[in-house]
């Protein structure tokens, strides 16, 4: 079974973003970038399926400028076999990303596509679902457990009320939640080996996809600041403040 994983280059989850003073966007210059944590979980799941003998090949795809090859290499170091970069100027809108990925899916015919449930920069939580719809495939989002059997995937999903289990026909799209697995660290020899693994570069034109603009970013602003609070010295004082000052209990 061939598995495709999509990896996005995003701000490191520990880094703090700044809003540009002209409010046109956030300022990411000199910010540490990394593979989106949910995508790392996607790669790890694919590698585990390969180690278990279920998967035969893992392809890691990223959409974006040349710099996102770093994240493809990171996926290769974790155990993906080859990479594809789809070269675009910025990170395009989710629907465009989904359309580009759909073309790769058409060409590569993977039986399983594993993606992150959300990218921690734009927090959209939509690309996997869009890809599934465009490819006419079923989906299992927010996965915390995946097992593959008889041409189907049985997936436990983290939903608002608890856990839901669904069975989906393959090929299908699965998006990862935090508790699906704990990604390994890439060992140094694997990082070296990853440098020699094949990495193809394609353009949207190669894939026959025209990128359309569906949204326009009007401005980016700072969220409302909370005003500084006070420290109380005892439980009695806390209760008194909550009753008489904040009036919330």
């Amino acid at each position, binding site marked *: 079974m061939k598995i495709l994983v999509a990896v996005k280059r995003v701000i490191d989850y520990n880094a703090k973003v700044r809003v540009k003073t002209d409010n046109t966007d956030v300022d990411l210059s000199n910010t540490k970038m990394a593979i989106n944590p949910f995508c790392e979980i996607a790669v790890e799941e694919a590698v585990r399926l390969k180690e278990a003998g279920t998967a035969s090949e893992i392809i890691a795809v990223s959409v974006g400028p040349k710099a996102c090859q770093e994240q493809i290499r990171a996926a290769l170091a974790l155990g993906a076999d080859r990479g594809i970069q789809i070269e675009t100027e910025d990170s395009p809108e989710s629907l465009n990303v989904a359309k580009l990925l759909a073309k790769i899916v058409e060409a590569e015919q993977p039986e399983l596509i594993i993606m992150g449930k959300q990218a921690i920069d734009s*927090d959209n939580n939509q690309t996997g679902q869009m890809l599934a*719809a465009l490819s006419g495939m079923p989906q299992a989002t927010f996965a915390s457990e995946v097992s593959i059997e008889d041409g189907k995937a049985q997936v436990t999903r983290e939903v608002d009320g608890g856990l839901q289990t669904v069975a989906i026909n393959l090929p299908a799209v699965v998006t990862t939640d935090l*508790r699906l697995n704990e990604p390994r660290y890439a060992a140094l020899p694997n990082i070296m080996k990853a440098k020699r693994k094949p990495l193809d570069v394609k353009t949207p034109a190669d894939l026959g996809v025209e990128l359309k603009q569906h949204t326009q970013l009007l401005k980016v602003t700072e*969220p409302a600041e909370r005003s500084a609070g006070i420290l109380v010295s005892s439980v009695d004082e806390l209760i008194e403040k909550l009753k008489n000052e904040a009036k919330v209990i």
Partner: protein
Amino acid sequence: MAILVIAEHDNTALKGATLNTITAAQQIGGDIHLLVAGFNCQPAADAAAKVAGVSKVLQVDNAAYEHQLAENLAKLVLELGRDYSHILAPATTTGKNFMPRVAALLDVAQISDITAVEAADSFQRPIYAGNAIATVKSLDAIKVITVRGTAFEAAEQNGSADISSVDAAEDLAISQFISEEMAKSDRPELTAAKVIISGGRGMGNGENFAMLEQVADKLGAAVGASRAAVDAGFVPNDMQVGQTGKIVAPELYIAVGISGAIQHLAGMKDSKVIVAINKDEEAPIFSVADYGLVADLFDVMPELQQKL
């Protein structure tokens, strides 16, 4: 201009987030239709008819929609939604699951998790774990939107809309519901609670959450958790508050043994009053707290429970 809102329900009752989504629809302005797609869902449709501001309820009653499977539901919404200017659903795990499929099939963008309506085509949404707010304009003819419930008031339930039954069912049969394990609790639901008390890694283990539950019972509060507490297996996943868990904005949020990582703050910093109880006075949670108590939670919680 007419707006189609997709109700979230369990066939017997509406989920609260539906009411907040109706308010967002009212702010956009236009005729509002509420779709209830389910199985044996008459009680939910009746509840939908009572939501103020709704002019018509569309009811689709078929086994294909019993569990709101994304594949079937998206197909239905696609068919019913073409003539609307906006299609809205709550940004819950159900809405997040099927709505992007609707958008993709309509060849339009989805504007995810909006927190304010600026105009009929422009919306605010938090990005980077709420550390920046983007104002996004949709250029599409049909606007597909998910709504953050905590950012909008709940609509009243004193309306009386007509219910029209629609016959449009199709089971794509590519996905199948197997089972579910839903948390049972007499406490209010996290996203609707007026008071929330959450525990973090500092709680030490799952048994110690009983201390939070006792205080919660006195305050009529819901109990939440940080990711670290969920990952450690102290409590189940549906209790996680944060960027990648539930977004909450109660009147009072009490964080106990939680350090205040940005991913946690993203889920609770719009709460009206925040209390932090932590033994480390340097913990970042104190920077957003209205009232901070630097102390050992194992001393504080029993005392709080006794004195409330």
